[in-house]
C-alpha cells in the first residue's frame, strides 16, 4: 500500500516538475534538474557511525547522529547571474534534511535548471530567517522531526551527537546542536566548480559533495571536546556553526543524461 502511494506521489512530483518547467519563461524546453549526492567522510574515508576518529590535536571522537538542513540553493552562471532554486511557502520544497542514517536523504535534486553554463553553487546550512519564523511547517520542515528547538523556537540547523573520551559531559557525550533565530543566521556556503558545468535539454549533471567531519574539529576554529563537549544555543555554537559551513567540498561532477534522471524519478 505504502509502495503504491510512493509511486503515485512520485508520478505527481514528475508531473509537477514538467509543469514548472513549462511555466518557467526563458527556460529551455525540457529543462532538467541537477542531482546532488552527499557523502559524509573523515578526510578521504567514508564516515562510519560509531567508529573512533582522531583530531589533529589528538582528541578522539565518534559520531552517532548527524543531521542537518540544506536550503536556499542557487547556481551561478558563467556570466555572473544566478539561477535561484524555487521554494514555495506552503511546502518544504527546496529544504532538504540530510541524515547520515537515511540513505535516501543523501541524494536529492534541485531545479529544473534552464540550459546554460554554470560555474558554482551556493546554499545555506540551515533555514533562512523568514522561513524559520513562519509558523507550523510540513515535510522536511515538520517540527515533529525533532530538528526544532522549543525553548527558543526555531530550527536546529545542524545536529551532531557522538562521544569523545575527552568529553567532560555525562557518558563522555558530544552534543552539538546549531541553530538560531534572527540573531544567529544560517551559514552560507559557496563552492566553485572545478570546470564549468553544462546543462542542456539532453544532459544534466550530478554533483557529488563530500562533507568532511574532520573539519568540524579542525576547521576555521579548533574544537576541543574537553573544553566544549556541548553546544545547544546560538551563542555557544557560533564557532561550530562557522566550522559546519567549512565541511563541504565538491568531490566530482559528472554528466547525467536525461534518461538517467528519468530512472531516478
Amino acid at each position, binding site marked *: 500500500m505504502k509502495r503504491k502511494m510512493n509511486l503515485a506521489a512520485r508520478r505527481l512530483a514528475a508531473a509537477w516538475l514538467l509543469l514548472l518547467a513549462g511555466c518557467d519563461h526563458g527556460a529551455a524546453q525540457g529543462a532538467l534538474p541537477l542531482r546532488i549526492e552527499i557523502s559524509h567522510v573523515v578526510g578521504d574515508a567514508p564516515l562510519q557511525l560509531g567508529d573512533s576518529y582522531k583530531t589533529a590535536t589528538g582528541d578522539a571522537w565518534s559520531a552517532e547522529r548527524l543531521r542537518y538542513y540544506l536550503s536556499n540553493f542557487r547556481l551561478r552562471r558563467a556570466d555572473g547571474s544566478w539561477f535561484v532554486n524555487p521554494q514555495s511557502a506552503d511546502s518544504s520544497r527546496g529544504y532538504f534534511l540530510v541524515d547520515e542514517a537515511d540513505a535516501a536523504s543523501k541524494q536529492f535534486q534541485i531545479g529544473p535548471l534552464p540550459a546554460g553554463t554554470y560555474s558554482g553553487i551556493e546554499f545555506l546550512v540551515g533555514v533562512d530567517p523568514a522561513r524559520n519564523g513562519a509558523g507550523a511547517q510540513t515535510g522536511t520542515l515538520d517540527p515533529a*522531526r525533532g530538528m526544532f528547538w522549543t525553548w527558543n523556537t526555531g530550527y536546529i540547523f545542524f545536529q551532531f551527537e557522538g562521544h569523545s573520551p575527552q568529553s567532560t559531559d555525562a557518558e563522555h557525550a558530544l552534543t552539538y546542536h546549531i541553530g538560531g533565530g534572527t540573531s544567529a543566521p544560517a551559514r552560507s556556503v559557496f563552492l566553485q566548480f572545478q570546470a564549468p558545468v553544462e546543462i542542456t535539454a539532453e544532459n544534466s549533471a550530478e554533483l557529488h559533495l563530500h562533507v568532511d567531519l574532520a573539519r568540524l574539529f579542525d576547521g576555521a576554529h579548533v574544537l576541543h571536546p574537553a573544553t566544549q563537549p556541548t553546544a545547544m544555543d546560538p551563542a555557544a555554537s557560533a564557532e561550530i556553526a562557522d566550522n559546519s559551513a567549512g565541511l563541504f567540498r565538491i568531490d566530482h561532477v559528472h554528466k547525467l543524461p536525461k534518461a538517467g534522471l528519468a530512472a531516478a524519478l
Partner: protein
Amino acid sequence: MIAARATPRLQVPQGWPAPRYDFAGNPVTAAGFALGRRLFYDPILSRDGNIACGNCHQQFAAFAHLDHRVSHGIGGVNGKRNTPGLFNLAWQPDLMWDGSVHHLEMQPVAPMSNPVEMGGSLALAVDKLRRDARYPELFAQAFGSPGVDSQRLLRALAQFTGTLVSADSRYDRYVQGREAFTPQERTGLDLFRQHCASCHREPLFSDFSYRNNGLDAAPRDAGRAVISGRVQDQGRFRVPSLRNVALTAPYMHDGRYETLEQVLDHYAAGIQPSPTLDPLLANGIPLTAEQRDALLAFLDTLSDENFIHDRRFAETHD
C-alpha cells in the same frame, strides 16, 4: 449569550493595532476552531494523557491558573513560572514570559515537550491523534482532506488561541462612550496613565518589552537573558497585559504575589535595585491610600466578564 456552536472570527477592535498573527494562512473555520478547542481541552496531547492545556489555563481566570504560583505539570511536578492568561495573543509579538516562542502556531510545542509540563513531544501527540477513533475524521472536516500532521494540529490550536479576544471590559465600554466610570474609577484611570501606562500601554495594556521590575537584587531566574544571551537582560521578563488582571492572580513571573494590593506594595516600597532594574522604577510608585483604592478600582474595570463566560471558548463534551 453567544451559542457555543458559533465560531469566533478575529475582529480588530476599534483603535487597536493590526494583529501580528496573520490568519490569511490559516483561515478560521467552524470545524477548525472546534477542533482547536477540543485539542486545547484534551489531555491526549500530554505524554500520559493526564494534562491538557486547559488544566493550567482556566477560562474563569482568563485562561491563567488561579491560586497556582507556578504551573503544575505531569506527575505533579512544578514548573518554574506562573501560567499567564491567554487572550489577545494574535497581537503579541513573542510569547512566554521570556519571549522564547516567536510564532503563535509554535507555542504549544513548548509545553507539550517540556518535561515539567505535558512531558511528551509533538511527534508523540501526532501519533496518538492518528490512532484515535475520532480525530482523523475531525481533522479531515477541519482541513478539507484526510491527514493528521503537526501543522494541522498547531494550526487548529492557533484557530482557538488566536481568536481568544478580550476587548469587552467596562474600560472598553467607557473608552467607547457606552458606559460611565465612577469618579473613583476615573481617578484610577488618570493615575494609571500617569504611573503605569508607559509599560502597560493601552489598548493591549502592554508594550511587549522585557523589563526588570525590581523583584530581586539578584534575579533567581535569568529570564530574557537566556533567550537573548545579553547580560543586560538578566531578570527581565515580558511586561504582561493588565487586561483581566483582577482575575489572574497570582502575579509576577514566579507568582510570588497573591493579591493586587501586594503588587502595589511592591511598586510603592519594595523595588530592589540591581544593574538591570528598569530606570522608570528607580524611585518606585508611591501612592496615598486614596490613590491606591482608586487605582485598584480602575484595575477592576479591566475584567472582561463576557470573555470569561463566552461559551464558544468553554470545554464542550460533544
